């Protein structure tokens, strides 16, 4: 925006700054781009997320909604400019309570908290709710944030475990400091001088052919470079699953979803930012389109990909026993049809990144969950050898699965190759919601039977999943769903099939649970029907059928270390209390409010389904005694950096703080695979355990001690203790390898799985995690609204490597499960912002009681299992079952259960 009014002077933390930006420019942009105050995050540019919250004269404001002129003369404070004891205390409390996961919301949250705490040093939970109502967090489920603010004055419980004691200790995140200081570098935060800005010209149609006009003249007139599919030097196709790469980086002649890029515009930021892309020369020829799985599968549906007839991407199935016969002979049979919606990941950080050339290597620093995939696919698209692309993952402001796909990487890479200059791209909220992947909408039909004794006899299941325009992770959903559709219950006779169908909706990809949360809604709802029909308490019914050690799954795999029974047993007392309380409340109810309780379980296999997915960990010790842990697993907030370090430290016998993290960085860290499928704690953790052990053995070889209790780095080497014996291992002056290490170990682990046969039989996963949750809800019968009052979650994590991070995952998963159940519905073309697409706020979040069960897994590192996705699987079905309990409505078969849907169901029932 250009205009002629007098320049603005801003006062930030007592210092005056003359501003060159126009007075109408947003304060958020001025603070970030002109003053370099990058703790001010931009999540939506519309007042919806609060990531840009700063203090103006001590009061919280969204900097994105303030023209800089309106801030003139006021005192402005941002997280990095605050330097007082209260803030130091708040930061320490956030670290101690694990209140920052990915950390992208943390600066905004803290600014809101500072305003509150200055007035109210010991706030109540209600006051925290009030003060933080305008800041969204997608990771934590808000509980740890509330605790960190309310328990500010309780002395910090800093655990600095002794050598060998790190696993099991609730240690602070090893990478937490930068998050609470606001100095963490996310995809949009590294901007060297002279960086060019890249914007995409996107399709306004769901499905269309197009012809580009004279783009070079258009660009030349505006002083920008235009890049199109013709400029892509390599193979213009990327994907996530080998053999199914089908997505062009820039569309060629046809677009298949709303928002698909057809060109890039590259130039100086002050030119590109205000550019009106509406004048870009392109002629559209719209085609018919489909948006749902039913529309995509219809006979006359427009076909998206030539080689995929019927728009079928893939089918998956698991068959065991004789399901039809078993159902026919069952005393009770429940059947139902269930529909779920597109769900948006809605991480607070829209996709962003920067690329530059380091000699002849293309370096990309962007948000991601899969650096090696990014490297390989970007190299292919850009026609470069893999070793000429280096991926340095930026800190990720949330991922939840969608950052397992490429986003900005090939685009900024292309722009950098074309210009030779550093190029960055920062997607707006609506671009992010248009172009990122979603949770698969599903239409599922299931039938389950049980005997008079309540034992499950058999089950059939079919699910059609809308995989959108491109393959992305659709195949994974089509395989995972049949494998998990029985739930963690003994089901001897079983048939589950799934089909991934293309439509012109956004591509569905990975989202915490890969289809399993959707399937669990069908199965757990029908379990409630069966329990009622059989006259058995709903928890007891699940306990009766729960998988146990030695049982075989529907894939024929024998299980060990099954902790589901222990989870359900741990919930029993809560279940009885909640049953009693709800009954008492309802007996006295005269108004429209009724309470109900529900329960559901989960299981989830950790790692890729029947496919190799190795991780490699390297540890090196320098001659000066510094221990370097090369850790390539991306930490998207879940805590991989911390957990892997804890495991490696204990396995090696070193104190936790002796390890220095290196990476992730494809030039510095070996491949640790993707941060997906709840695999990092298990798979990379197992590699870290092996590497730690190998390191310890290497060190021991240099002593003549029989064993050791602890190793510590000392000046120029290491000190090894065994009882009263102490021996030093001198490293200074020793010969080093090509990486500069005196000692180096590297260990790889790949889960022992087998490929599944045509009937889905085999060993798809080596490790499973289990859990169960109770929901207590209150429903307004007249308005159809549901308030979740309390969730009680018991999860078998095998071994809680870091109990605090485990609880953080549970609370965050519950928040997302609640959104799935009650409010989140992405409608393509209608909800590409955070005021039409609603995610839970602090006020929606119930109290959570977390119970960690530790039934060791024989395969997992130190007994550990995965947890990241498990946590949201039971939430939605538990809430749905609780709503049915409160209202008596027979079936809720579409999520989210929006108030108007529930009202219609209540009315239909009455």
């Amino acid at each position, binding site marked *: 925006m250009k205009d002629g009014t007098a320049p603005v002077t801003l006062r930030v933390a007592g210092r005056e700054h003359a501003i060159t930006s126009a007075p109408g420019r947003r304060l958020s942009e001025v603070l970030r781009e002109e003053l370099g105050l990058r703790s001010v995050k931009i999540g939506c540019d519309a007042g919806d997320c609060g990531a840009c919250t700063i203090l103006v004269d001590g009061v919280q404001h969204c900097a994105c909604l303030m*023209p800089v002129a309106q801030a003139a003369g006021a005192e402005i404070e941002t997280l990095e400019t605050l330097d007082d004891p209260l803030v130091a205390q708040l930061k320490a409390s956030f670290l101690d309570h694990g209140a920052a996961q990915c950390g992208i919301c943390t600066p905004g949250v803290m600014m809101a908290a500072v305003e509150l705490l200055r007035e109210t040093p010991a706030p109540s939970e209600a006051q925290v709710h009030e003060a933080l109502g305008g800041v969204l967090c997608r990771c934590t489920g808000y509980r740890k944030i509330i605790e960190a603010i309310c328990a500010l004055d309780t002395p910090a419980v800093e655990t600095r475990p002794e050598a060998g004691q790190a696993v099991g200790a609730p240690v602070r995140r090893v990478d937490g400091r930068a998050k609470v200081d606001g100095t963490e570098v996310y995809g949009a935060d590294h901007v060297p001088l002279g960086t060019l800005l890249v914007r995409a010209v996107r399709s306004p149609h769901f499905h269309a052919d197009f012809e580009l006009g004279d783009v070079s003249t258009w660009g030349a007139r505006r002083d920008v470079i235009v890049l199109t599919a013709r400029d892509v030097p390599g193979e213009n196709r990327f994907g996530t699953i080998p053999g199914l790469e089908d997505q062009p980086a820039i569309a060629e002649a046809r677009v298949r979803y709303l928002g698909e890029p057809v060109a890039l515009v590259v130039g100086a930021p002050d030119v590109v930012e205000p550019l009106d892309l509406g004048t870009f020369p392109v002629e559209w020829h719209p085609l018919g389109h489909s948006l749902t799985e039913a529309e995509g599968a219809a006979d006359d549906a427009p076909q998206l990909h030539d080689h995929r007839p019927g728009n079928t991407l893939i089918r998956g199935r698991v068959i065991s026993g004789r399901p039809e016969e078993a159902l026919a002979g069952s005393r009770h049979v429940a059947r139902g049809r269930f529909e779920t919606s597109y769900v948006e990941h809605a991480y607070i950080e829209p996709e962003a990144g920067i690329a530059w050339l380091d000699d002849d290597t293309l370096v990309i620093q962007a948000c991601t969950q899969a650096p090696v995939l990014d490297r390989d696919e970007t190299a292919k698209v850009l026609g470069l050898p893999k070793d000429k692309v280096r991926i340095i993952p930026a800190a990720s402001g949330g991922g939840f699965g969608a950052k397992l796909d490429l986003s900005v990487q090939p685009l900024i890479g292309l722009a950098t190759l074309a210009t030779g200059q550093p190029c960055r791209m920062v997607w707006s909220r609506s671009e992010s919601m248009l172009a990122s992947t979603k949770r698969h909408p599903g239409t599922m039909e299931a039938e389950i039977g049980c005997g008079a004794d309540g034992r499950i006899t058999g089950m059939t299941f079919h699910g059609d999943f809308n995989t959108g325009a491109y393959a992305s992770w659709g195949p994974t959903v089509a395989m995972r769903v049949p494998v998990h559709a029985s739930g963690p219950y003994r089901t001897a006779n079983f048939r589950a099939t799934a089909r991934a169908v293309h439509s012109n909706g956004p591509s569905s990809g990975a989202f915490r649970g890969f289809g399993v949360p959707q399937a669990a809604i069908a199965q757990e709802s029908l379990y409630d029907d069966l329990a009622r029909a059989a006259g058995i308490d709903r928890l007891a019914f699940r306990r009766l059928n729960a998988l146990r050690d030695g049982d075989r799954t529907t894939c024929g795999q024998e299980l060990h270390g099954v902790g589901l029974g222990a989870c359900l047993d741990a919930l029993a007392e809560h279940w009885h209390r909640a049953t009693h309380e709800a009954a008492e409340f309802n007996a006295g109810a005269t108004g429209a409010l009724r309470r109900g309780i529900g329960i559901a379980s989960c299981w989830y296999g950790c790692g890729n389904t029947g496919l190799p997915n190795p991780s490699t960990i390297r540890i090196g010790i320098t001659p000066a005694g510094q221990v370097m842990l090369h850790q390539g697993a991306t930490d998207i907030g879940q805590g991989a950096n911390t957990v892997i370090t804890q495991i490696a430290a204990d396995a090696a016998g070193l104190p936790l703080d002796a390890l220095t993290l290196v990476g992730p960085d494809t030039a510095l860290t070996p491949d640790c695979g993707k941060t997906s499928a709840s695999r990092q704690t298990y798979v990379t953790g197992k590699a870290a355990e092996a590497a730690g052990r190998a390191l310890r053995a290497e060190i021991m070889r240099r002593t003549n001690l029989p064993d050791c209790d602890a190793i510590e780095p000392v000046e120029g080497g290491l000190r090894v203790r065994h009882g009263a014996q102490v021996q030093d291992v001198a490293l200074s002056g020793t010969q080093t390898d090509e990486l500069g290490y005196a000692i180096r170990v590297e260990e790889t682990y790949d889960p022992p799985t087998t490929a599944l046969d045509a009937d889905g039989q085999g060993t798809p996963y080596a490790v499973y995690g289990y859990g169960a949750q109770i929901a207590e809800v209150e429903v307004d019968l007249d308005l159809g609204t549901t308030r979740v009052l309390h969730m009680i979650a018991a999860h078998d994590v095998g071994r809680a490597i870091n109990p605090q991070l485990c609880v953080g995952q549970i609370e965050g998963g519950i928040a997302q499960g609640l959104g799935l159940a009650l409010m989140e519905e992405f409608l393509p073309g209608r909800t590409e912002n955070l005021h039409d697409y609603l995610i839970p706020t602090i006020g929606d979040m119930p109290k959570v009681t977390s119970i960690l069960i530790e039934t060791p897994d024989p395969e997992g590192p130190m007994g550990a299992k995965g947890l990241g996705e498990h946590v949201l699987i039971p939430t939605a079905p538990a809430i749905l079952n609780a709503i049915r309990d409160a209202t008596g409505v027979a079936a809720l078969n579409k999520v989210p259960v929006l108030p*108007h849907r529930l009202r219609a169901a209540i009315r239909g029932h009455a």
Partner: protein
Amino acid sequence: MRYERPATIEDVTALLASGGEKSFVLAGGTDLLVRMKNDAFEADLIVDIKAIEGMSDVTRTADGFEIGAAVPCAALGENAELSRVWPGVVEAANLIGSTQIQGRCTISGNLCNASPAADSVPAMVAAGALARIAGPDGRRTVPVQDIPQGPGKTSLRKGEFIEAIVLPDPGPRSGDAYLRFIPRTEMDIAVVGVGVQLTLAEDGSIASARVALGAVGPKVIEATEAAETIIGTRLDQPALDALAAVCSEVSTPIADKRGTVDFRKQVVGVLAARAAKIAYQRAGED
């Protein structure tokens, strides 16, 4: 884009009168800035009214309150006297957005944005609020419901803007209330909003009432027939049922992703009854 921060009301009207088609008053900017970003349009002229002397004041007058057009909604809640006399209006204004939005947004902006779902508008209509308009030809005062004309449209003429909202004193034994329906607990656009204001006779029956409905038509609906159903009653169940039924009947909502027509009609009745009960109780305590 030209950005101006005039110091007087005359400068505002002069600027607006001379400005191009895309000239806008800027108060809190919580609608305008979002709209400019979403619709990616460049304004010709923005006239920021926050620097005008007195525009950010809430004034107690002999027969009511005057709320300057630049007063952020948060300031309404902090005004004890206003909160005591017009709790429903203040609650409605304080439902807008989050704490951050509260510090910026104004009820004049809420009115002039002309969204059918604007929260403060049904409460203001129920309260009998007036908008004082300044223009190139002087001042005029109109009932607030005359301002919005449909989504995004107002009756303001070229060069005009609202300088203040006037809330008259309601007299003794009066109470007001505003309730809205949203699927999330906070930070959401009303699916239905209902404002009710009533005054009791000495005997405790309802002497006069005003009911206004939001988000169930292209603009706020002043439901006179609905108000009549409770006048003369003590808000017993039949009166509440009649109120709910008429509110449902006079509503003309659209169906969208936030709710079906049936649902909105049902909810408007439920909320009207609930809001009336709160207003009745407040009037009784007055």
